[in-house]
């Protein structure tokens, strides 16, 4: 707990200084929420607002989403500062790899992180986390944390369980889950890597994905969403978290990540110099899937 208070006060101080010195145009961080266990986003543009910043175990949101969703913030001649947990930094790396943002436009305030909570327990993504100390940051808030073996050693354990189901069981599992989808698109909007100017689901000429929340439309939407994130999803789990219908969306993304890792040995958002595998061709690429 005292760690929270220390990190919060360091964060306030740094944000205030950055804004006072005019080094950044805005600071995107966390502030106290209105519900138990929830935090709000705070986009501070003046030093006074910086007093409201906090950092605690409920800071589960991946704030990198604002880098692609709020274009206006980035259109300033100064960089934007963002609070990012070590795992969130992977988003920035991936966005740089995809040429969506420039490193110099972002001031990364890396938050060292012991894991965050989603509702009652440790967030699913934290159970298998091996990244407690921020990399590639312009400033780090919090003390270095000793890296230790995570609670869950195989991040793909749940994916493997699903893989082991029979085709029919798997179909039933997903049909039942997608049946709950009402197409609010919170999964898309909360995803920091869903940044298309026009989403394929909104295209009408032709209409690739039916917009109605019926089994055909829902299945098409979620599968295509997962495919679009193959080799790109950095596993922040925001889609899972924001789905009020509790559809385990990140399982689909994890499955794609697993496939990409098995095929190309690639993990998204880890190495800023690496080329995303689906954007390049190598002679030694595995091509067993082409028949």
């Amino acid at each position: 707990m005292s760690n929270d208070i220390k990190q919060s006060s360091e964060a306030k101080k740094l944000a205030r200084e950055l804004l006072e010195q005019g080094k950044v145009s805005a600071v995107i961080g966390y502030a106290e929420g209105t519900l138990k266990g929830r935090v709000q986003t705070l986009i501070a543009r003046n030093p006074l607002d910086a007093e409201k910043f906090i950092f605690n175990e409920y800071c589960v949101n991946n704030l990198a989403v604002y880098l692609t969703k709020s274009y206006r913030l980035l259109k300033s001649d100064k960089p934007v500062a963002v609070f990012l947990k070590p795992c969130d930094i992977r988003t920035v790396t991936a966005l740089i790899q995809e040429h969506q943002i420039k490193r110099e436009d972002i001031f990364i305030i890396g938050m060292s992180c012991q894991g965050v909570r989603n509702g009652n327990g440790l967030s699913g993504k934290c159970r298998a986390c091996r990244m407690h100390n921020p990399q590639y940051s312009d400033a780090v808030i919090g003390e270095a944390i000793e890296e230790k073996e995570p609670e869950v050693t195989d991040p793909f354990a749940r994916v493997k369980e699903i893989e082991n189901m029979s085709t029919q069981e798997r179909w039933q599992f997903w049909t039942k889950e997608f049946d709950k989808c009402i197409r609010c698109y919170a999964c898309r909007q909360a995803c920091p890597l869903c940044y298309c100017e026009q989403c394929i689901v909104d295209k009408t000429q032709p209409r690739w994905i039916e917009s109605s929340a019926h089994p055909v439309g829902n299945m098409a939407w979620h599968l295509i969403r997962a495919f679009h994130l193959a080799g790109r999803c950095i596993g922040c789990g925001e889609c899972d978290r924001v789905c009020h219908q509790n559809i385990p969306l990140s399982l689909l993304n994890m499955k794609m990540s697993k496939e990409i890792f098995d095929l190309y040995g690639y993990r998204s958002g880890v190495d800023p110099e690496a080329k995303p595998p689906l954007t390049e061709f190598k002679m030694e690429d595995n091509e067993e899937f082409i028949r």
Partner: protein
Amino acid sequence: MKIYKLKTGYTEFLGALLQKGKNVIAPRFAGRTLLFGKIDKAEEAVLPEKYINTVRSAKEFMFPVTEAVVEFSFRNKDVKIHDAHPEEDEKLIVGLRPCDAAAFTITDDIFNYEYKDEFYLTRRRNAALITFACESIDEACFCTSVGLKPDSIQGSDILFKKNSAGTYIAYVNSEKGQKVIDSVKELFEEVIEVVEDIPLYRDLENKMRSPLDTVKIKEWLDKNFESPLWDEYSSRCLGCGSCAYLCPTCHCFDIVDETKYSQGLRRKNWDACQFPLFTLHASGHNPREVQSKRYRQRVMHKFKYYSDRFNKTLCTGCGRCVRSCPVNLDIYQVVSELTKEETA
């Protein structure tokens, strides 16, 4: 209005209704998600004391997330169209909260004025709303801000409240409600004497977030279509439709055609003012091209436009938008802070 004592528990009540062949819709778990759904066995239903509210409101039983309104088929120049029909079976929606029952009295206005939407209205006529007063609340609840209470009867056909002995007392509020009671009369005993005011409900009322001043909010909105605050609040908004889709009073929709070979359906689908496509003209012009304008529309529609038109606030304080917002953009907090600002 008659008052009855339920001689059994909730599950037995549902069991008796099912035994009579009634179509019972009640909160039950779909996976980990508490949703209204058709109950085949009384035990599937979650006891009212076990939940605050369902994730989705009951609006989908009058205004489904997607429904066919016209059927058509075509072959060359020959086109045939048919009416699609809303299901006409009677439904008993049991275990809903006073905020959700009251919501229908608000959306009735829009679907029932000038042009009558018989898809909504048929289902509405055929559904009995059997409400259970709240036994717990959370920090998101704010129904007292919009004239409701944990035990409001507005919109309910029957309202069940628990007395201090833990017995359910049924307040019949309509003929439809009376019919439901009559169908399982053996479970009920009419109460003649004055029923006690139950302290639980007053406690919940007092524990709730302090009531908003909707008159003051409207006054502020009347003057502040243009305000830098819209930008400030909406900059956090991710532009998803969670708030609108889970809202029991949001009623905007889209109409789309879907075909398979030479047959098709024209569908009415939920839609939300938070999506940029909602107002995009074919010409490319978009009156609400940025999120701040879309967020403003949402707040204005709830607390100003709807009351300008129908003299009602388009909100029941159920708190679903607050609970579901990915970034905790809390409409209660927003409107209460807005009104603190000096009007321009």
